[in-house]
């Protein structure tokens, strides 16, 4: 049980990190997530399936799938072409990279709709997410769901590096922890680079970015792509953890990601980007824990699994209320909750 909460918290925490970038750092309320998350899962599934087919020397199948759509399968096709049989070890990595790429592509679509057609962020995200439902179905080969038994990235990683001596639960947890810490660490590093600092200033005061001679449209596009890339990566990991990719993976994911971000902000106050990043993971684990508790013992209060979405919504409202109330106190140093603009 506890491993389940931790693994889910870490895997979905990477998605929450993506939301943290778009909602908090870029100040760009991005709903693309509901499309980029399953896109990542689907791409991972398709790549794994495509590679599987290559391994039984039916390379043609990969081509058929590739023609069907999406960058995920395109990557799968590339993998099928460049990776000769016997190099199945590369499959998990390719699946995760494909998941990232598929998510990033969805982000770029939203960015294009927003910047070129001047559509407000939320609507741009809804358009992309709606369109990606069909694209994701195509990536999945016309089926709503695709099993990931062979070449499962998370499990493979765990088995290759930890050996058979460790139980599956523990090795899954270690694999998820490694993935989440790697992403969080790289993110922390990124936000200390020149480009990362500029991105940080972007949502805060765009004029200061323009004044530095930086094209704000390119910078925001990069940020949205990065955010959705992480969401896609999280989708690929989630598919790996669940053992299948599903076109409906994205439903309700924005709310749960936001709840994770906000719970983290309630939990730990800090102005340092490193702490802000790691507290998102903490918030995500806490969120999964609360959801688990509601599922397991909720019946005591008359809560059924059907009520979990309502619970998520109430959690967000509660977090905003608390941080607003806390924000009114003098000498509150951190920016908790939303920005007052």
């Amino acid at each position, binding site marked *: 049980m506890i491993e389940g909460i931790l693994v889910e918290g870490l895997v979905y925490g990477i998605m929450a990190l993506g939301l943290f970038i778009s909602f908090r750092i870029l100040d760009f309320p991005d709903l693309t997530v509901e499309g980029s998350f399953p896109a990542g899962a689907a791409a991972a599934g398709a790549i794994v399936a495509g590679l599987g087919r290559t391994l039984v020397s039916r390379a043609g199948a990969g081509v058929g799938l590739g023609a069907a759509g999406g960058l995920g399968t395109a990557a799968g096709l590339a993998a099928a072409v460049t990776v000769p049989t016997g190099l199945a070890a590369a499959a998990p990595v390719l699946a995760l990279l494909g998941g990232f790429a598929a998510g990033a592509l969805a982000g770029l679509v939203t960015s294009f709709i927003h910047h070129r057609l001047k559509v407000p962020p939320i609507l741009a995200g809804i358009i992309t997410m709606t369109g990606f439902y069909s694209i994701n179905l195509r990536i999945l080969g016309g089926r709503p769901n695709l099993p990931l038994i062979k070449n499962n990235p998370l499990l493979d990683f765990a088995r290759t590096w930890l050996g058979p001596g460790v139980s599956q639960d523990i090795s899954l947890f270690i694999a998820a922890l490694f993935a989440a810490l790697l992403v969080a660490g790289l993110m922390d590093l990124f936000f200390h*680079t020149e480009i990362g600092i*500029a991105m940080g200033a972007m949502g805060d005061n765009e004029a200061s970015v*323009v004044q530095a001679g930086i094209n704000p449209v390119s910078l925001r596009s990069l940020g949205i792509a990065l955010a959705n890339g992480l969401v896609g990566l999280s989708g690929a990991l989630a598919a790996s953890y669940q053992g299948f990719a599903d076109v409906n993976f994205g439903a309700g994911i924005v709310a749960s990601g936001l709840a994770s971000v906000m719970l983290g902000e309630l939990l730990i106050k800090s102005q340092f980007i490193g702490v802000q990043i790691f507290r998102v993971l903490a918030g995500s684990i806490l969120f999964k824990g609360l959801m688990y508790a509601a599922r397991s013992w909720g019946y005591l209060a008359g809560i059924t699994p059907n009520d979990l979405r309502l619970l998520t919504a109430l959690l967000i409202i509660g977090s905003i209320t608390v941080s607003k109330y806390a924000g009114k106190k003098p000498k509150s140093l951190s920016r908790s909750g939303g920005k007052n603009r």
Partner: protein
Amino acid sequence: MIKIKGLEVSFPQGGGEDRKVLNGIDLEVPKGQTVSIIGSNGAGKSTLLNAIAGTVPLCAGSILLDGRDCSKDPEWRRSSYLGRVRQNPMAGTAGEMTILDNLALAAKKGPRGLHLAVSKTKAKALFEQVAQLDMGLENRLRENVSRLSGGQRQALTLLMAVLSHPSVLLLDEHTAALDPGNAEIVDRLTKRFIAEYDLTALIVTHDMKQALDQADRVVMMHEGRILADVSGVQKGKMGVSDLVELFRQSRGKEYAEDRDLLG
């Protein structure tokens, strides 16, 4: 160096007709010169700076910065030539970032890479730059800018505006929102930075004394046009009352011309 020719800017207003805010501005500012721009509200002073910076689109005319025609460049591209400080101390800085990060962002123009933004040597250089402000900010580099006072924030914005060695500095009533003490400090810093960084500067102000003290040349605007342009010996002899008188005379002349036309 700034070279402006036949500049026109209009804003849409109700009834389908556009209101001309700048109506044929010609202005040439040689390198290293500081020009004060004065005039009543609605004269188009701020719009002139916004047009140079690219914040508002031009209807006609051209703007050359350092001999290069920038009239069609987007704002971010023109920023490479420009340092800018606006009236609102919040406008030029990112409040939720540290002083150090703000300085690192402003220290160079143009696209960024994946280098560490604040290396040890860079941090040391920035420390010394901030120490010049003489406000004790060098010991608060890791604090968020939102915790600074308006005067401190404006001084920091001024430093950020010149840090990357732009060729032109645009100041739009940058001391108007400050108390007299802080305004004086920022005024002194302005003068020092303009000399130290060898900047060509345009200063929009309502303060006649500031206009005379800060600049080599005073340009007077009214209803989107330049009415008077005083520099050299003539400007050197002027006091505040002379400037006000000149302002009245120039406007009076314009009224007279209008009467002639109508009569």
